[in-house]
């Protein structure tokens, strides 16, 4: 009973590959699975063709295996699919001039934030040294004198 409940908490791997799709050569089949995991199912768009049950996913899985049997390398298979569907079919976006923003903007943002923090800390340090220079009150010598004069006047008028 407990084992049953525990079993429900374990995630089961999802694969959509049917037995009749699998290639006879286990090494090639393994390559097909690796390639399929990185190709986007264009119908579901958030699943790979390895996971998706859509018809198009099945067609593409068969296509990948066909290309492998014909002797294509992994990269050639990717190129074949990308030539027809564009970069979006790759689940890992390639790093090229059009995707620099996608890849590097988070780091750029981090750098800008970092610079902002540096400026803020400097500002704080300056304020602190100004405080220390005036004996802890943050007032310049002039302002101290005026303050003392005002307080004296105040005391006299009491």
């Amino acid at each position, binding site marked *: 009973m407990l084992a049953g409940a525990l079993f429900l908490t374990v995630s089961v791997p999802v694969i959509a590959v049917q037995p009749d799709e699998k290639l006879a050569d286990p090494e090639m089949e393994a390559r097909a699975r690796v390639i399929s995991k990185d190709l986007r199912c*264009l*119908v579901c*768009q958030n699943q790979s063709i390895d996971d998706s049950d859509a*018809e*198009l996913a099945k*067609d*593409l899985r068969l*296509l990948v295996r066909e290309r492998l049997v014909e002797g294509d390398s992994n990269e050639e298979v990717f190129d074949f699919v*990308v*030539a*027809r*569907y*564009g970069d*979006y079919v790759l689940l890992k976006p390639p790093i090229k001039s059009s995707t620099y923003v996608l890849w590097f903007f988070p780091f750029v943002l981090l750098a800008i934030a970092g610079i902002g923090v540096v400026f803020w800390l400097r500002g704080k340090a300056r304020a602190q040294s100004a405080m220390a220079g005036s004996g802890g009150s943050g007032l310049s010598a002039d302002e101290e004198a005026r303050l003392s004069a005002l307080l004296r006047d105040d005391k006299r008028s009491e």
Partner: protein
Amino acid sequence: MRRLLFLLPVFVFAALVAYFGSQLGEDPSLLPSTFIDKPFPEITTAPLKEAKPGLATSDLVGGVHVVNVWASWCIPCRAEHPLINRLAEEAGVPVHGLNYKDTREAAIAWLDELGDPYTRIGFDATGRVGIDLGVYGVPETYIIGPDGHIRFKRVGPITPQIMQEDIMPLIKGLQK
């Protein structure tokens, strides 16, 4: 200088509003064709029925052509078909059909019911020809220029607005 720095977030915000606003109403799941302005991929297909020839890339010469990918099991294809009929009548260019992942009987019956405006109809039972064109859903419609290059691809059914704003003007423009 300090003032400008204060205003920087406002400018960034305005720029983001402008960009995101311009994208409102666009469907992010639509993929642009990789073949726009490139030659129509080399395909050959068997004819769907005896009365009409099949479709091959070598047929797409000598003017503007339209290729409409459809299937009898596809509901949006049914919805757009009256517009395809109209397109074939009014545009003055051949409109070809590519029957995608269908059976001959169902496809022929569908055309008998809804009308057959196609000059040529290709039969792609396995969908492999569709993959070579970058088809990922039906219906899809391609406009091919006189040089054999794809000039326009619509994923999804043709709407009257697309007919009026994109397809008819493009065809007229290409015919000059």
